[in-house]
């Protein structure tokens, strides 16, 4: 009898500490009508968050030993800096390598990193704080864990917003998001003496902010999808028309006449056409998803990428440099190629 009540208590503690953040993550993914993030990326983000938590656990323990009298101050200021930097490593990597390109997918991946972090943190606390009551686990599961996900999601979202609206790069692009995550995390830790306040902040604030982020992201994606797709279709139309040489792209390729042999210029035109076709292909999949329909696997994509690789090799580095002005290579263009190359469905 005693044994069974202990077991049900343990199950409840585990459920309260671990489930809310995972359910929140699942809800975020379900809200994304374009299905921008694959399950694999979500799991990788969770794993990277878990790795960050392990590193931070060691580092924080070391800091507590060095400054035994300043544990409170460290928990309020030092730990948020260390933990947010550790979490940011992965979401910065995702944005810098164009693996995420919209606010919604950056929010999902950022939240997943934070969720992975919170899961490891809460599992360790489940072992360390066995005598704590249900209140502690409600606060840790719904408050702290959701906060970890929420601030990382916000940090990543701010960076993507700056990339999209200001075209910022480097430290300037990531510093504001990281700083916002640190400040919010620190504020949360400082309000822990008022558990209801911090719980409310996480449970109400995070969904509210992420709701706005998703709304803005879908609006931006819809606008980009339509505008960019129409431009791509126009270029395809021009390439196939007799007046191609009079267009800006055609005139530019003609201007390379003296520098490159005809067969190489032919490859350049093929590469341009193939790149645009890939771009249209990726957008077609988004259109289908936008309507809530399933996208079937693309059997041709592998051979198209093989052809693209062949053309790039044939054109060579100098030729690639020469046609660079014609190839649209914004973070979103690169993101599309990543998705197609990885067979995201």
């Amino acid at each position, binding site marked *: 009898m005693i044994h069974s009540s202990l077991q049900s208590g343990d199950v409840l503690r585990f459920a309260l500490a671990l489930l809310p953040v995972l359910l929140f993550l699942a809800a975020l993914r379900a809200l994304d009508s374009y299905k921008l993030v694959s399950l694999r990326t979500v799991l990788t983000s969770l794993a990277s968050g878990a790795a960050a938590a392990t590193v931070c656990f060691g580092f924080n323990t070391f800091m507590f030993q060095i400054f035994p009298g300043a544990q409170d101050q460290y928990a309020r200021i030092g730990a948020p800096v260390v933990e947010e930097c550790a979490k940011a490593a992965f979401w910065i990597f995702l944005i810098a390598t164009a693996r995420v390109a919209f606010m919604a997918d950056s929010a999902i991946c950022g939240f997943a990193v934070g969720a992975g972090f919170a899961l490891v943190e809460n599992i360790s606390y489940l072992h360390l704080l066995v005598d704590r009551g249900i209140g502690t686990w409600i606060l840790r599961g719904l408050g702290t864990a959701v906060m970890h996900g929420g601030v990382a999601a916000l940090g990543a979202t701010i960076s993507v917003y700056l990339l999209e609206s200001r075209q910022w790069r480097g430290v300037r692009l990531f510093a504001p998001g990281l700083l916002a995550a640190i400040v919010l995390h620190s504020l949360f830790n400082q309000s822990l003496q008022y558990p209801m306040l911090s719980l409310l902040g996480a449970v109400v604030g995070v969904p509210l902010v992420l709701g706005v982020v998703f709304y803005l992201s879908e609006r931006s994606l819809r606008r980009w999808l339509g505008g960019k797709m129409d431009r791509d279709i126009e270029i395809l139309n021009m390439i196939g028309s007799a007046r191609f040489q009079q267009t800006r792209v055609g005139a530019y390729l003609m201007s390379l006449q003296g520098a490159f042999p005809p067969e190489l210029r032919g490859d350049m035109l093929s590469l341009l056409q193939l790149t645009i076709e890939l771009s249209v292909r990726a*957008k*077609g999949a988004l*259109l289908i998803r936008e309507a809530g329909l399933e996208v079937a696997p693309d059997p041709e994509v592998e051979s198209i990428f093989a052809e693209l690789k062949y053309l790039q090799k044939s054109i060579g580095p100098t030729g690639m440099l020469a046609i660079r002005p014609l190839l649209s290579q914004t973070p979103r263009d690169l993101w599309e190629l990543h998705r197609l190359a990885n067979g995201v469905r």
Partner: protein
Amino acid sequence: MTIECVPVGNKVVLRVSGRMDAESASQFEPECESCIAKGFTTLLVDLGEVTYISSMGLRSFVAIAKKLKETGGSLRVCRASGLVRQVFEITRLTQIFPLHETVESALAEG
């Protein structure tokens, strides 16, 4: 862009001509919806005279295909050629509605 609706039994053929760009594509969806409201469950869209299709046009096709699928009907696209055909094939929207060479072959299918 002009659209002409020709009922053939329980199916309807929509003959579209001109450019299906952002502005004109907005006519297409209500026209299809009106056919669905009249009880037609199979819509055949003849694109033989269409020279251009924009993302808005493609969106309309996907939306109508989805509506028809939900009611057990189907959307069939016929006589698409040149850029229009190329765009349908590249975007792989053909996985939602197949392309037919002629109106007759689209009518003959089920």
